[in-house]
């Protein structure tokens, strides 16, 4: 993991002029931004606004049509980053016909992480009592926690989490956000997407996205101050209205 001195001085992700076209549709017309180190950055916006595509670009699994994405000083997706960037996709990417433990053990051996690390992350996501259950038998929320545990296996410096708390009960959601905060304090950079605006308050920094463009990139408090709104949803609407005016 990165130490806090690095965290204070570098931006971990640098996106410039990023253009992505999927199936003839321009998803990201030319996006530029940076993500600071050691913070939780929330990526918010309605579905279809390009959140997942931007995250895929940061991980380096998305074909791009222009611009650049650099992560920890390297081109995104480069071999040096494959152990240092943890990625959790929206749909749980785990093997339904393997148990929770077998899933984690397998991904641990691919990542070269020690076997004991599997048990640690299983506990972190609160699945200690289901280690020997097949992933396919778990509920949707539990399966996405298995997927989240895989993303944490290699103790990555950057974690890209696509809607990690969808369908979870509030207690567990609070617990996971607590975990994200701990990881960030330890120096990890966390990029979390959500379409639930009330999760925004737990982020250090927010990027509001609409139609493939960033309409805001700020700390939650100053975003509220700047728009005069009292919650993030209202701030989002205020920004959309501002743009609509000539």
């Amino acid at each position, binding site marked *: 993991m990165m130490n806090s001195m690095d965290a204070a001085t570098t931006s971990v992700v640098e996106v410039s002029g990023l253009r992505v076209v999927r199936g003839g549709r321009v998803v990201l017309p030319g996006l530029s931004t940076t993500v600071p180190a050691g913070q939780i950055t929330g990526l918010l916006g309605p579905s279809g606004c390009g959140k997942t595509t931007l995250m895929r670009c940061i991980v380096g699994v998305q074909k791009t049509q222009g611009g650049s994405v650099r992560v920890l000083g390297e081109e995104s*997706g480069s071999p040096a980053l*494959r152990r240092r960037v943890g990625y959790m996709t929206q749909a749980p990417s785990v093997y339904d016909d*393997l148990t929770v433990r077998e899933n984690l053990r397998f991904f641990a051996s691919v990542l070269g992480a020690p076997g004991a690390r599997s048990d640690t992350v299983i506990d972190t996501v609160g699945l200690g009592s289901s280690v020997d259950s097949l992933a396919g038998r778990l509920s949707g929320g539990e399966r996405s926690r298995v997927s989240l545990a895989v993303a944490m296996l290699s103790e990555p410096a950057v974690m890209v989490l696509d809607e990690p708390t969808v369908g979870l009960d509030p207690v567990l959601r609070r617990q996971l956000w607590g975990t994200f905060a701990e990881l960030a304090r330890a120096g990890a950079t966390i990029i979390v997407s959500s379409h639930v605006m009330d999760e925004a308050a737990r982020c250090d920094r927010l990027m509001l996205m609409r139609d493939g463009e960033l309409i805001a990139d700020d700390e939650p408090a100053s975003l509220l101050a700047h728009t005069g709104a009292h919650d993030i949803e209202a701030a989002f609407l205020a920004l959309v209205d501002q743009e609509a005016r000539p």
Partner: protein
Amino acid sequence: MNPKITGAVARRVLTQLRRDHRTLAMMLVLPCLLVSLLWWMFDRNEQVFDRLGPPLLAVFPFIVMFLVTSVTTLRERSSGTLERLLSMPMAKLDLLLGYAIAFGVVALVQALLAVSLTVGLLGLEVAGPLWALAVVAVLDAILGTTLGLLVSAFAETEFQAVQFMPALVIPQILLCGLFVPRSALPDVLDNVSDVLPLSYAVDAMQQLQRLEALDNDFGLDIAVIVGFVVAAVALGAATLRRRTG
């Protein structure tokens, strides 16, 4: 490439197969049942069984392994785990080889079962050595596996993968020399059959059936089959893309 990762993939695929009883039965039992059916059909005419048995010992495992491998591998793509693995420090060849090894182990068991049954219980007689019969059967099953791995790269859904079966496998069965000796085919078709892997598998079997001593032609057939296996794995790895649209 990393042998540890290749091994982890192979172990994982075998664990998954062990839990999937229906697929396992299809791979291990089905070729045996098909050979038994053939034997029963020619109950009154053993010579026909002796003639058709060896080539079909090449064809049945080939088809079954092709089908099972192409569909199973596709699950990796549709579940999102392929994308996840490719974002990790894993060489594409690690994945392909891991699959090839796991299914190769099953292919080995399958071919040995089918050969033991055919020779031991059903009384198939060949001129050549039995070990060679087993070797060719195993190789053909592995050939089916690796071609299945390759075509699964070109399918988006399991339904599409199944469509490759009539498109790519049936023509090979028609042209491999089972129905008409390849030399008796029209020139164009004879040339086409020269580039189809199953032709060499069936040719090797037919030689075993006729000749007591194995000659260079047999060795050449084996070399070509191994060549197809290696090429399919290499091409399969080359077609995997870490970045997708």
